[in-house]
């Protein structure tokens, strides 16, 4: 795995975008990420749709590398840590988590995070519906109505559609930045991309294994 970074400054704060679907926030010693959807592959299998759990293992391996690379002690998860019910994937995650001592997980609850409170407690996760760490507000789903804050969110699985000559089309995952918010790409590789957006004035940071590219609308 190849970790590439790009520094951006928002509200005088330096954030480090990576091509591995997570942001490093140096001031807080934290990784910011969203939409890990743990349990999704097992959920599919339970309903008769065969999907290998190697996808989850790969996601977790990436996360482990990122934690090691930036030496963070906090994970700020902007929602949809879990996909559905408690299942074997969730157990796999629990075992995997045990290897990190002293790392703190903060989950801003997403629409998928419907595990019971006792299960969540079991993970020792701090759960919020909204979290303010100045100068940012962390919410799962971006909302226009909160024009006073700069919102860091997830939920939409943003992607950018590139059109080339000869009807070439290419979809890439990206970070979407506007003047009042930043939307994170989904961390899990087992997610689709949403290239539709209602907002204007978006700067997209798309990425591949080999690079991070900035697109201005």
């Amino acid at each position, binding site marked *: 795995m190849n970790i590439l970074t790009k520094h951006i400054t928002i509200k005088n704060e330096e954030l480090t975008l990576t091509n591995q679907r997570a942001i490093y926030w140096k001031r807080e010693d934290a990784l910011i990420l969203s939409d890990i959807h743990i349990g999704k592959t*097992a959920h599919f*299998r*339970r*309903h008769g749709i*065969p*999907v*290998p759990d190697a996808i989850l293992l790969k996601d977790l391996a990436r996360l482990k590398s990122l934690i090691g690379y930036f030496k963070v002690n906090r994970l700020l998860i902007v929602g949809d840590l879990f996909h559905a019910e408690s299942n*074997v994937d969730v157990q796999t995650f629990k075992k995997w988590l045990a290897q990190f001592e002293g790392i703190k997980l903060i989950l801003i609850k997403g629409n998928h995070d419907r595990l019971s409170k006792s299960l969540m407690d079991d993970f020792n996760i701090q759960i919020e519906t909204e979290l303010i760490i100045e100068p940012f507000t962390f919410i799962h789903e971006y909302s226009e109505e909160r024009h006073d804050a700069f919102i860091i969110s997830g939920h939409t699985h943003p992607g950018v559609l590139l059109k080339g000559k000869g*009807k070439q089309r290419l979809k890439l995952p990206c970070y979407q930045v506007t003047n009042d918010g930043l939307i994170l790409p989904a961390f899990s590789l087992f997610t689709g991309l949403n290239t539709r957006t209602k907002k204007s004035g978006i700067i997209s940071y798309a990425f591949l294994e080999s690079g991070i590219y900035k697109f201005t609308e």
Partner: protein
Amino acid sequence: MNFKESEGLRIINNWMAEKGQAPFPFQLQTWQRYANGYSGMVIAPTGFGKTFSVFLAVVIDYLNHPEKYPKGLKLLWISPLRSLAKDLAKAITEAVDDIGLDWSVQVRNGDTPTSVRRKQERLMPDVLLTTPETMHLLFSQKKNSRWFKNVECVAIDEWHELLGNKRGVLTELAISQLRHHAPRLRIWGITATIGNLEEAKNVLLPYQDLKVIHIIAKQKKKLDIISVLPDEIEVLPWAGHLGAKMVDKILPIIASNTTTLIFTNTRGQAELWYQLLLSAQPDLAGLLAIHHGSIDKKLRNWIEDNIASGYLKAVVCTSSLDLGVDFKPVDCVIQIGSVKGIARFMQRAGRSGHSPFERSKIYFVPTHSLELVEISALKEAIRENQIESRDPMVLTFDVLVQFMVTLAVGEGFDSQELLYRIQKTHAFHYITEEDWQWCLNFITKGGKTLNSYEEFHKVVLDEDGKYKVKSRRISMLHRMNIGAIVSDVNLKVKYFSGGYIGMIEEFFVSKLKPGDSFILAGRVLELVQIKDMTVLVRRSKAKKAVSPSWLGGRLPLTSHLSHFLRLKLSDALEPGRFEKELRFLNPLVSRQEKHSHIPKANEFLVESIKTRDGYHLFMYPFEGRLVHEVFSALIAYRISKLKPLTFTIAMNDYGFELLSDQPIPVNEENITELLSKERLMDDVIASINASEMASRKFRDIAVIAGLVVQSQPGTRKNNKSLQSSSGLIFRVLEDYEPDNLLLRQAYTEVFNQQLEEVRLQSAFERISKSNIILKRAESFTPLSFPLKVDSLRGTMSNENLDKRIQRIKEQAFKID
């Protein structure tokens, strides 16, 4: 007992005589063969009583031997269209009542209310009319075999419509399953004429133990083909251009006939022509209707009823009315634009003048002048009775795993016994033991890689040795997904105040913003919002609105028709005395000959033109859009090996264009090499993105095999937590299980259908034997102009298009 003197035949003959009819010889023949225990296939044109050939055969046999027919289901009637079933049931019920039988005749398909279905499950009717999908749904019911034990005959109506696609494979499997329950079953197919009748019969009736006959009606449908010529000839034709000018030619045709069906090729065109006709003659309002697959079912039913009653004067439609109920009042058909195939053209023509001794009448309205060559080609092909084949599909593993789960949801299956049966069908004759094991693994363990997953137990091996589905939720999900028709993601369109209008593709809606106007079902609508897979709209007063495009609209030219097209074009310089289309085209043909060349049957034309836009290379294989897509990529690839170049590619059914901003290094010396048939498929694979094409093909496969759960339009409950795209699953499988059979199938389908490997090979074979003519033209020629305009359309908005075309035309004329 002698059949000719049997009581049953006497009753039927009397009944027909009372109505002033007598059986056609092919009907009599069918009845007799059926009585002697034969299975078979009946080939007859529409309107000659194909239905009664098979249906009455069963009735006569029953009248002669009532003791052989216990209570319950006797005849299963499988037809591809739901709408056919309703009217067929009516006709059959009438006949049954007249003859004095106490049979009940019922329909069962997706439209059948639950209460009726429950009633049927308690006591099946004597005759059941249904679809292949519903047959499979029946097999997924508990204890379903009791319904089929005493079935004497299964009839497959319009078999040619099923053969050649996955619904045909569903039908093959359904027959195999029925034979399992009722070993004495007689199987009868009914089909229109196609190019490969013998093969069609063998696919339907592969069983050695059957006595098989095929019966061809001698009756021929009389057909009048009339081409509608524009007032003046456009020497530089472009698709769709003639439209508005031809409206005045169409109105008198509508006026002088009782009821006219106006066929267009796409739903978008149908909407457009509906508007054109109405604005040219506003008093048609209420008498003119529009009918296509995206219009709400209720509205379509209303339209169909009112064609049948003769209330409507004309209906603009698409292939949605190709098949189906016979509309007695229809005495005229108008085809607008290329019809792309001979069989389709005859099918559409046959929608008029339906009773046996009437003539069918079809008007052909070209949308650009080159299409007149096509009508000339069609006439020739029909004269020579050359009709396309439908190639049956084989080894469609997606359909097979679906079928296996269907049986597992129903009564369960024994692995060896089922494999033995499957191998007797045409589709799976060549399945290997290894493939079969893979399929079993796929439904029990999720494929090879999922060996250790406890939570995956879609299908389990039960104590009685049968594979079964135990989970109710999986059963339910599976039943929702049965079938082989995978529709594009459609959204329902509904008035804000209530009332459905129709369906629209998601990709089209995604380009609209609230407040934008679009046209559907002939109405101008304003988008209000999108909610729960439903597009909410209100009536719009806007003058300008976009006409939706539907992705599935573009059909490629069949190879049969393109063969005749090449012949006709080569004749065009010296047309025969009666070929009025070619004579009319003379100015265009002469211009092409003067500035470039008209390719003879043994020639292949390449044109190179330099304009302000850059350097153009045109080639005209006349093999249809799909083949040209591959052909053009291949030539671009071969040229770029000579010199690295970037091309813009445009294509239509006749040829393709490569455009570059730098000179294209093609000359008399290297052109033969560029068009060589050597290393053909290697170069094709190197030139296309096969993985991306396969990923697109995988969409249908993933849905049919149950890897992707389809969300139902307009329903709130769309299994959100199970949503994923086939593209995502495709990538996952390529990464983690590259030898997955369903992936392999996607690639096979790309080669057979998308790349049309066989057709491409034979095209290059033909070209290798042709003289290659390379012409340098000063400006666009009649053949290249439509390509130029088509490619403009891709990159420019419609407003500027007219001006732009006008300018190009003026420039082109200057050399005169």
